[in-house]
């Protein structure tokens, strides 16, 4: 069941977009769902949220950051190459309805999975504000796509090289919450500390907030329980109960700790890979 790459774009130094030929998944997927891919026989199962899909062309797009061995290998594939398998769509779709004003906040690579959610929220008749953050202006991705659809787009950078100078939670507060702009729902996707900061902020202003969790998982169908997260004191599986949850109920501390389970092994895998690339083993 190998899957062909139809398009490859480098979006920033570390961020890549791949478009796969996957008509069945393209037909079924909804905003908020993800796929799991495996590059080769020895590869791990890599979960990636769907960044876009085209039913007519039969394609599914993922956007990822080349941070470990698997994602670096993925980034080195070319148009016409095939990966071994792609399974999906997995997870519950985003709950879409007309809320009023929805603020879609993407941090770093989290901007990519926000893209279909933003589109679906807009299509449901919401006024959509998008806040896109990155460490610096070169790392901002998909700005044009968001500008085409969203009613407002605010760019933030940690170093102030573009847009609002500072973290996303402060941008949200300074620009919208403090001035008293009515926001009916916040959807936030990004690194755990960022989502945690956003939910702390929106709790202060009592704005309902949905987050999408990228827990470590293997099968993506509820079988391994590796992706368990504590939500409202209960154990939930990010793969089948999520990946989206009420951000005010998520135990981010536990999530962050579980995400760091394999830090040592990831380093080892990376070093092993580098040696292999140099011809040693």
């Amino acid at each position: 069941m190998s899957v062909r790459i139809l398009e490859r774009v480098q979006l920033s130094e570390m961020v890549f977009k791949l478009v796969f030929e996957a008509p069945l998944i393209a037909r079924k997927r909804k905003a908020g769902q993800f796929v799991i891919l495996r590059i080769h026989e020895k590869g791990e199962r890599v979960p990636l949220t769907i960044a876009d899909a085209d039913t007519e062309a039969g394609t599914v797009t993922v956007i990822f950051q080349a941070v470990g061995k698997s994602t670096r290998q993925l980034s080195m594939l070319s148009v016409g190459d095939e990966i071994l398998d792609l399974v999906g769509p997995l997870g519950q779709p985003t709950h879409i309805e007309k809320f009023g004003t929805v603020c879609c906040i993407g941090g770093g690579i989290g901007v990519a999975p926000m893209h279909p959610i933003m589109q679906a929220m807009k299509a449901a008749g919401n006024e959509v504000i998008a806040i896109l953050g990155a460490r610096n202006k070169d790392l901002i991705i998909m700005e044009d796509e968001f500008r085409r659809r969203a009613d407002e787009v605010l760019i933030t950078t940690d170093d102030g090289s573009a847009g609002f100078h500072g973290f996303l939670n402060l941008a949200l507060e300074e620009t919208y919450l403090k001035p008293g702009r009515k926001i009916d729902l916040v959807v936030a996707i990004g690194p755990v500390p960022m989502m945690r900061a956003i939910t702390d902020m929106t709790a202060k202003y009592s704005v309902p907030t949905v987050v999408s969790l990228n827990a470590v998982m293997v099968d993506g169908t509820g079988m391994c329980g590796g992706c368990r997260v504590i939500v409202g004191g209960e154990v939930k599986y990010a793969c089948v109960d999520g990946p989206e949850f009420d951000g005010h109920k998520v135990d981010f501390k536990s999530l962050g700790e579980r995400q760091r389970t394999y830090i040592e092994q990831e380093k080892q895998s990376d070093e092993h890979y580098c040696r292999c690339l140099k011809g040693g083993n």
Partner: protein
Amino acid sequence: MDMKERMQLPRTAMPEQEPKVRARNFDEVPLGYTPEMALIEAQRCIQCKQPACVQGCPVGVNIPAFIALVAEGKFVEAAMKVKETNALPAVCGRVCPQEEQCESKCVRGLKAEAVAIGRLERFVADFERSQGEVACPECTLKTGKRVAVVGSGPAGLTVAGDLIQRGHSVTVFEALHKAGGVLVYGIPEFRLPKAIVEAEINYLERMGVEVRTSSVVGRIFTVDELFEEGFDAVFLGTGAGLPSFMNIPGENLSGIYSANEYLTRSNLMKAYRFPEYDTPIVRGRNVAVVGGGNVAMDAARTALRLGADNVYLIYRRSQAEMPARSEEVHHAEEEGVQFKLLHNPVEYLGDERGQVKAVICRRMELGEPDASGRCRPVEVAGSDYEIAIDTAVIAIGSGANPLVQGTTPGLETRRGNYIVADETTGQTSRKGVFAGGDIVTGAATVILAMGAGRKAAQAIDAYLAELPDK
């Protein structure tokens, strides 16, 4: 050899790897019979006119007939005889609890030891495979009827094998990237080499079964959509894939696995060969495995092979109540798993990084028998103590995976989200939809799932015969 001599032969032992050696490698533990051993063991079968052993087999293998062929040295023919009713003989010869089934009924067992039926089954299947390409029964009949099998574990593979032989077109949908279900993700290499599962699935494919991996029914297709796609019947064999936890404090700490995850990482993803394979696994030095079933034994023995210094098997009852096969318990003990019987974990403690560092155990004692007929474990007050660990594996059972039930309107389920299906036909509350295996009964054994698959296949065949031709 005359009957008297045959009656005096002791049960032939099967050679196995030395415990100290095998506890550090993933190679198969029992090495299997040689042809000489098989010839001798086959002599022990007295060819009963009314063979009780066959009654004990959930798929009704003609045991005396295949053993008679072994005794004549016709090993390949013996394998073909087994395959008439069992699509996965090399698997069953290894993982069936024969001591509770066929061998428990063997008349030789009344006065001495039962004939080693399982070892002989394994031998003939392995012998046939070692002879190169396994012969494939020709099936020229084509009914034009299409069956979708959801899940490629023991139940689904049995249904697929039976129905393809009856001329139906069969497509198996598997959620993972590899077919085999629990045979590939759950049971470790040292108990069931994956090459054997692959060979058995390859055999089904050569008979014409189409296997579609990475296809999650309930997501990519619903059951209704399978009918819309032109399938005439659907078999649901999705298994008991949802891991259970104890819901005690600290269970979410890093380093605590469900047995499903631990075994899937090691078996399916080959994390034991990390970093050659990309999937990591925590190689704990002090590992606690909680539970007393076969899965707990598999997890404990896997932990040893991943290099643990101490593996503690924590079980709240005594050894007599353990649901694991005695052979598995015996193997685990021989290899050095430390049994903490009448112990129950009550809390996990973590370090500052959220990594598990200890389990608090409470001692238990046996009370009155409970609903399962086993003595109920009762807590001993004030008996808590700490065991230092860096990894824990929870192997206390698993529940029904909900993906199909949640997306199939009109499919009746019972408590625990198991599918309600007729015991003799597998018929569910939905027309044309059948189910069997763990998704109906709750977690059980490979062979019971195969038995359910066998019955469902008969019912599906009858159902298809009633449908008008397309």
